[in-house]
């Protein structure tokens, strides 16, 4: 191993989900085994680093000031779906069922990991709501203690705000339950409990 190689390996190891061994494999792959791929990767990294940033309104990936969703005039800008991470937004979009816009928090409250309100993209959400542009908030955060606390925090802060015109803001949280197409038989006990707790009136 050479000093430059080790430096690269150290840098790769900082990436999420990459340990010492995989960092070594990646570095060997890029430098020795398939060096032809390297220029394309370097160019892609440089270009992305120059152009990709957070959308100043919603926190989604953007190449200009705003992301393509915020710029899309056909979307309903008064309905905002709050998610933890960009991949959550991508998953919602894949469903094709949603015509509003988003707000990406880039995390959630977690005192144990030292994450407070100032560490997530919350102030920007507050500003959006205060400006009166939001009529409805849909909270699509994870179904666990931290997700629950973050929902509660947002609701407490913003429930008293009103949309332009003075109507109170509607806040809802997405439901949790059985995967569609999946029967009761194959769900684990904890999912069944969650589905049962979240049951709705029928008829």
């Amino acid at each position, binding site marked *: 191993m050479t000093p430059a190689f080790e430096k690269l390996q150290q840098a790769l190891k900082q990436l999420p989900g990459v340990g010492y061994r995989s960092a070594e494999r990646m570095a060997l792959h890029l430098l020795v085994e398939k060096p032809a791929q390297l220029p394309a990767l370097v160019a892609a990294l440089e270009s992305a680093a120059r152009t990709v940033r957070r959308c100043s309104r919603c926190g989604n990936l953007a190449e200009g000031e705003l992301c393509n969703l915020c710029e899309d005039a056909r979307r309903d800008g008064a309905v905002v779906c709050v998610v933890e991470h960009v991949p959550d937004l991508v998953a919602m979009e894949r469903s094709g069922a949603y015509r509003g816009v988003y707000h990406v928090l880039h995390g959630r*409250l*977690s*005192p*144990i990991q030292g994450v*407070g*309100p100032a560490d997530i993209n919350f102030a920007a959400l507050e500003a959006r709501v205060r400006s009166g542009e939001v009529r409805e908030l849909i909270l699509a955060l994870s179904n*666990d*203690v*931290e997700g*629950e*606390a*973050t929902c*509660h*925090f947002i609701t*407490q*802060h913003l429930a008293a705000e009103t949309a332009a015109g003075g109507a109170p803001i509607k806040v809802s949280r997405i439901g949790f339950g059985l995967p569609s197409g999946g029967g009761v038989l194959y769900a*684990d*006990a*904890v999912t069944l*409990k969650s589905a049962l707790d979240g049951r709705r009136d029928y008829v």
Partner: protein
Amino acid sequence: MRLRRLTLQNFRNIAMAELSFAGRQQFFVGPNGQGKTNLLEAVGFVTALRSFRTADTRLLLAQGQREAAIACDFEHEVQGATKLVIRLHGEGKEVACDGERVTRLADHLGRFPTVVFSSQDQQLIRGAPALRRRWLDLTLAGTDPVYLHGLQNYHRALAGRNQLLKRQAATAELAAFEQPLGAAAAALVAARRRGVAALAPHVAAGYAQISAGAETADITYAEDSAPGDGDAAAWHAHFARTRARDLQFRGTMSGPHRDDIDLRVGARAARDFGSEGQQRSLVLALRLAQVSHVRECTGIEPVLLADDVLGELDPTRRRRFWAALGEARQVLATGTELPDAELGAWDVFRVAGGGFAAEAGP
């Protein structure tokens, strides 16, 4: 279920052991420090993938070894003949059931029940409330993944709030975590109350079988605080109300993590008023209740691991206790001396220096 074959490798002082169990009762005899309890610890490990002696899995590896293994062949009421292999190493453990990797603890819990009877068990009566809560939590979580999930949720929310209290965080952040904490507290207390109510008749029945006296034993759940209706809203309000005090102490001073279980013999607190003999009988009754509960919830007969408990009982209690274990269950027991002939036929293994030698049958 029955444990028919046990193979251990590099487990504490046991370099290698391959044991076959033909009968219902196995006795491991030898001086202290030779490896008797280590063997029971290995068998007990299969139940919840944790040791009944230590939380640090690394201590289970033989000195200087990087990996240990526990392999068991079971005859199982639900799964038929089943092979379970557990590999322990410095970073954790890998579990395979009939060659299939087990990745979630919730999928594993309750499938291979064992119940440990230990000479340390009297601490359940004399020791701190934390020991009794742990006994209850392990008993209930061992048969109910929803209970385990709720318990984990409560502790996660509690750790969050405690961290915020330590940091003297703003009210809004504390209030945000008191919401899930309140919901988890209400669910946990309700589940524990139901659990204790289900265990109580088993405790009373076990005590009556073992004890020579006429008095009865009884357990109840004792709440440290019981706000309002005990529902999520009442608990949420409780944590909001106690916030100022908890900020001063920098920790959550009340809640289900402070609860206890009242143990009584003849309507008096067993800890303060029970005689030595009554306490011994009660502790065995608690373990027997655990056995019945597992059986009732899972339909699986647990394997009993009796670590040096026979020697401590007087002959009458010992005979009654043995009768209470029932004819159906497998028992692995240890002691420094062989048990009386009246406790039935045993497969006997002499234990010395981490080695096990089967004694020829009678």
